[in-house]
């Protein structure tokens, strides 16, 4: 694709190393952590605090403090889980899939994108544990020989989901850390303060850039990327099967696995955009995250929105092409009933708003594309609300219909995970190199990136 350069003119391997190290090691005229970081960190900790209180009260009082009940037995807990795990996908798509495709623009984005994946996956992993009636027995999910003689129900998508999330979180951490090793070694050798040298020295594990280390590093990184790409698709397919595997109205559909992959890509690209745009200005990364990156992300964003639109259309089509009156009734109620604002909010924010990205001028206007990204994140949350809550509230039997209103403890848990996400992400931004220096150097030389 033609367009602006992926890196500013005049940048060299040396200038990349110096600029990124200066951001992380706080070298130069301003050796202290900037004020904006402290303000953002304080706000994040405040949000995290609400989550801690919410979880503490949940452990004390039990699930009765939430608004879930029969028939809406899944509420914000599973909604937030699906939302967060979808957000996590963006980093893997950019880091692994586009590595395999050999695109140059990925190099400047992959570190921040992978970090977003880690933080979001961490938030997602909390909810399946908390939504258990007795969360202290969560380890029963592990298939281990036990005196009760019980095993997980391996034919259930919920059991598959456990393996998927376990693998995804663990593999994402390893992929992120493995990719960091050369940059940690650079920080170790560049750091001036003894504390920094010890910190990065221990984390670098003794990586020194020997020919032997690079040979094995390159081989393992490529295979890991080749594994992460299908892994992220499998994870979201399995999350889709959590719903499709049941007989619930609005759920029992073979299109759910790709539908969830499309949604994951949309929210993943949205969160990368929403995070990158302010950080690019705050950390002075304009030379590395150029107009080309914003343009490419905007195009990916638009493409995934069109995929989601296709899934929404197919959802409506298959409902009315089929002959199940309960499915049709549920769909009509979803569009015109009590939760209609949720449905139309989803359509507006996920489908209509991103259409503005057809115009290059919109893609290139940072505040506009940032707002569209934020809108999509809200829209994807609403989409999960309509999938989970509307379906459960309008089951096959009208006598079993109900409604669901989240309580303050569910909202505070959502905001608490937003705090956890921001806190961990800000710590990574502060302590780790925000751009993959070794890959940038290789790209500048024209080598393997």
């Amino acid at each position: 694709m033609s367009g602006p350069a992926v890196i500013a003119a005049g940048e060299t391997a040396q200038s990349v190393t110096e600029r990124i190290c200066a951001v992380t090691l706080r070298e130069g005229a301003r050796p202290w952590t900037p004020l904006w970081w402290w303000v953002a960190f304080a706000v994040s900790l405040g949000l995290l605090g609400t989550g801690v209180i919410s979880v503490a009260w949940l452990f004390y009082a039990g699930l009765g403090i939430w608004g879930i009940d029969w028939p809406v037995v899944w509420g914000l807990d599973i909604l937030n889980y699906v939302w967060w795990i979808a957000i996590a996908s963006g980093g893997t798509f950019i880091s692994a899939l586009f590595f395999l495709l050999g695109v140059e623009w990925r190099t400047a984005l992959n570190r921040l994108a992978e970090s977003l994946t880690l933080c979001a996956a961490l938030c997602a992993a909390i909810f399946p544990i908390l939504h258990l009636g007795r969360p202290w027995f969560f380890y029963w999910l592990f298939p281990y020989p036990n005196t009760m003689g019980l095993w997980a129900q391996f034919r259930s998508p919920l059991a598959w989901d456990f393996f998927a999330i376990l693998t995804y979180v663990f593999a994402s951490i390893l992929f992120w850390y493995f990719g960091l090793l050369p940059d940690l070694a650079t920080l170790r050798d560049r750091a001036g303060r003894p504390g920094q040298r010890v910190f990065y020295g221990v984390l670098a594990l003794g990586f020194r850039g020997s020919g032997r280390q690079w040979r094995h590093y390159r081989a393992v990184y490529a295979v890991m990327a080749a594994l992460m790409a299908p892994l992220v698709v499998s994870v979201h397919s399995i999350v889709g099967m959590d719903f499709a595997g049941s007989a619930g109205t609005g759920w029992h559909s073979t299109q759910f696995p790709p539908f969830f992959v499309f949604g994951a890509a949309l929210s993943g690209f949205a969160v990368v955009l929403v995070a990158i745009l302010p950080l690019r200005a705050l950390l002075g990364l304009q030379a590395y995250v150029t107009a080309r990156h914003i343009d490419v992300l905007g195009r990916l964003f638009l493409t995934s929105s069109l995929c989601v639109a296709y899934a929404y259309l197919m959802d409506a089509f298959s409902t009315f092409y089929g002959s199940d009156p309960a499915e049709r009734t549920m769909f009509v109620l979803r569009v015109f009933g009590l939760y209609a604002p949720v449905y139309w909010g989803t359509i507006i924010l996920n489908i209509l708003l991103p259409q503005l990205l057809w115009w290059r001028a919109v893609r290139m206007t940072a505040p506009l594309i940032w707002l569209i990204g934020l809108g999509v994140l809200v829209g994807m949350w609403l989409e999960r609300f309509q999938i989970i809550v509307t379906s459960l509230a309008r089951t096959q039997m009208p006598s079993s219909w109900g409604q669901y209103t989240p309580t303050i403890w569910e909202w505070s848990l959502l905001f608490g995970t937003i705090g956890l996400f921001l806190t961990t992400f800000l710590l990574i931004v502060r302590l780790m190199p925000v751009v993959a220096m070794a890959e940038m150097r290789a790209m500048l030389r024209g080598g393997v990136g």
Partner: protein
Amino acid sequence: MIVAAFATEKGMREAAAEMRHGDCGFVETYMAMEPWEAEVGVKGGSVLPAVMLGGGIVGGLGGFLMQAYATTVSYPQNIGGRPDLSWPSYVPATFELAVLGAVVAGMAGFLLLAGMPRLYEPADEADCMRGAMLGSYVLVVRPADSAEARRVLARHAPIGIKEVAE
């Protein structure tokens, strides 16, 4: 052990080639980005993709057999009338465990073959070694004849050279 730093990759490459050609002893290159294999004299691919394949097979096969054992021998249940050995439903967890096995094998194998973690090496005593991950190009030589090795290295204009005890 002699540690020599060069300002350019070309300088290091030529010095390494001459040292290897003259059979001056063990030579290892250090640099801050992935080297072109032919240029630094590293021959052959890594065995780690095969190790990761092995890890994947162990993880996947182990996962499949665990599910088969649990549902046929240890705790058979009638789920929707399916046979006990309903293998299609084992596929998702088998795939996930195969990926997990491969990734863990890759990381563990890398640490083993790359000699990590190793926080200290005698070569670290040379100041110029610190430049390897910062943009200079470093050769570490374990020569049979130290004086001859220094003469060869000096011909390629190193920006730093130091002999350290092993």
